[in-house]
């Protein structure tokens, strides 16, 4: 099932031509209408006419989150503020929040790509979709909401939090699909067990999960515990919000809505564009957005691109599951460590919970990595030596995979904050 068959199954040549036209239009709009990007181009001695083919995009300067902060709040808008009909902002855990503005047309594009996403996940007019992403400045809630309404599904806009009520509504309203973060999905499963509710008693069939990186192991855990299909969706507010890319029934990567978002993979250190199939940082350009277009926005998300045809029939390029973030990457005693590696170790061991936190500290000029792992009833023992053996076993597995030693500490269940939003996976206490 497709939402927009012509766009989602377009031939490669036609897509290239469409993207080239849109790119040239975008660059000329940016040059004429957005002071910041014009000065960026001028610094490099570039004129809009210098971009004639898709490959020419590599000449253009990148845009970063820092640029958004520097131009807070409205400096990156490319239209008069009177044209803006919606404003969203990131939570701003570090520094100023990043602000995005949408025109009416932008909101239409957003609903369109989100409807494609939900359709690819098997959601349709008959579905009851419970949206447990936060509503408000965060793009998750409203983004999925408008896509689901355009699609014609019955929308249950619960927003995030109050897990017991979420579960009650899920049962009473016959929810068939849920949208939330993957860590919240696991939290719902845990809460159901505590309430003595078998997820199979609900009508839930599918979940669309995003807003934080999650591993294949976590997918299996969600699918097993909730008895549903767990689909990965990708998006970020700087580009549009949820709906940039989505998994299809084949679950072999996420289809990017290429007619709206042009992807590149770069080497995060040198900035050079990498050949197809190589792992690097995803860079996205919004080809059609008006309010706050982004040219070569550095997402910091690490992935690979695949243009091979997909079993589902879509011809759009697929990005692999996000493998981590280039800025989440920790360098510990010279070794690159990603939180997702720790997650896969814990999930592969089977007996541990996927709730963990990495704490990095520096003592006497030496980095120390401590991994906090939440204890579950299943892991717990009344004997000290068994718990110590478990700690050592996790430590051994981590050392194998990370190539750097870590101290494992078991902590009480639910001490690592996670439920409502994105789990905080890394605490870096080093003062460098």
């Amino acid at each position: 099932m497709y939402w927009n068959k012509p766009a989602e199954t377009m031939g490669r040549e036609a897509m290239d031509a469409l993207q080239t036209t849109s790119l040239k239009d975008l660059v000329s709009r940016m040059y004429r209408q957005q002071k910041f990007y014009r000065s960026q181009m001028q610094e490099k001695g570039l004129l809009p006419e210098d971009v004639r083919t898709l490959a020419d995009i590599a000449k253009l300067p990148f845009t970063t989150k820092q640029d958004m902060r520097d131009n807070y709040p409205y400096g990156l808008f490319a239209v008069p503020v009177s044209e803006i009909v919606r404003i969203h902002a990131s939570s701003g855990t570090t520094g100023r929040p990043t602000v995005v503005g949408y025109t009416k047309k932008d909101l239409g594009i957003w609903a369109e790509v989100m409807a494609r996403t939900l359709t690819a996940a098997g959601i349709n007019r008959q579905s009851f979709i419970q949206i447990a992403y936060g509503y408000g400045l965060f793009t998750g809630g409203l983004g999925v909401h408008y896509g689901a309404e355009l699609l014609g599904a019955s929308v249950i806009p619960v927003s995030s939090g109050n897990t017991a009520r979420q579960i009650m509504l899920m049962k009473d309203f016959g929810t068939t699909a849920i949208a939330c973060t993957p860590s919240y999905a696991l939290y719902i499963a845990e809460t159901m067990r505590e309430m003595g509710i078998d997820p199979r008693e609900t009508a839930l069939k599918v979940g669309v999960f995003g807003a934080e990186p999650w591993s294949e192991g976590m997918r299996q855990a969600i699918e097993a515990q909730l008895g549903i299909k767990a689909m990965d969706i990708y998006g970020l507010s700087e580009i549009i919000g949820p709906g940039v890319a989505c998994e299809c029934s084949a679950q072999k990567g996420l289809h990017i809505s290429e007619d709206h978002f042009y992807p590149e993979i770069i080497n995060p250190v040198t900035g050079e564009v990498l050949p197809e199939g190589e792992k690097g940082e995803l860079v996205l350009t919004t080809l059609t957005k008006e309010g706050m277009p982004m040219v070569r926005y550095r997402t910091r998300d690490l992935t690979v691109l695949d243009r091979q045809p997909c079993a589902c029939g879509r011809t759009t390029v697929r990005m692999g599951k996000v493998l981590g973030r280039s800025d989440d990457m920790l360098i510990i005693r010279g070794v690159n460590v990603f939180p997702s590696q720790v997650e896969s170790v814990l999930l592969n061991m089977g007996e541990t919970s996927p709730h963990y936190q990495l704490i990095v500290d520096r003592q006497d000029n030496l980095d120390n990595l401590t991994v906090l792992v939440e204890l579950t009833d299943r892991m717990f023992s009344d004997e000290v030596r068994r718990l110590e053996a478990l700690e050592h076993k996790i430590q051994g597995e981590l050392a194998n995979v990370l190539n750097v030693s870590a101290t494992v500490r078991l902590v009480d269940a639910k001490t690592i904050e996670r439920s409502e939003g994105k789990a905080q996976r890394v605490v870096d206490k080093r003062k460098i």
Partner: protein
Amino acid sequence: MVIKQLSVFVENRPGALVEVLAVLKANDVNIRALSVADTSDFGILRLIVNEPEQVKRALNEAGFTVKITPVLSMMVADTPGGLCDQVEKLSGADVNIEYMYAFAANAGNGARVVLKVDNLKRAERLVAGDLDGATGVDDESNDGEIPNFYW
């Protein structure tokens, strides 16, 4: 007598123990016996309470990780050598003691000892003085008759 012991995971930080004890207090639970095993990071609080299943639920609801383990409870004479005589019965029959803790029972009644052993049924018969009947009993199966009220 085989009884149920509650084990509670306690992080090694100030206030962690009091959080567990506050839940017990709020639920009007009287602690019959207690021991703490500790490492540098965490401790395991082992408790004997009446109605252990209900107490486990209360602790779980308060967010604690709790496990119920069947253990052996026995009386020993409150005299020199009292414990030695009982433990000899177990070691003589190759029953391994994982851990144990003792406390004085009500005045004049001797002392009570809680033991975690690797062969519970056998140990129970041994300490009851059934030295012959004990041999060949390796059955770990739980009869489901563990009482809920202790002393």
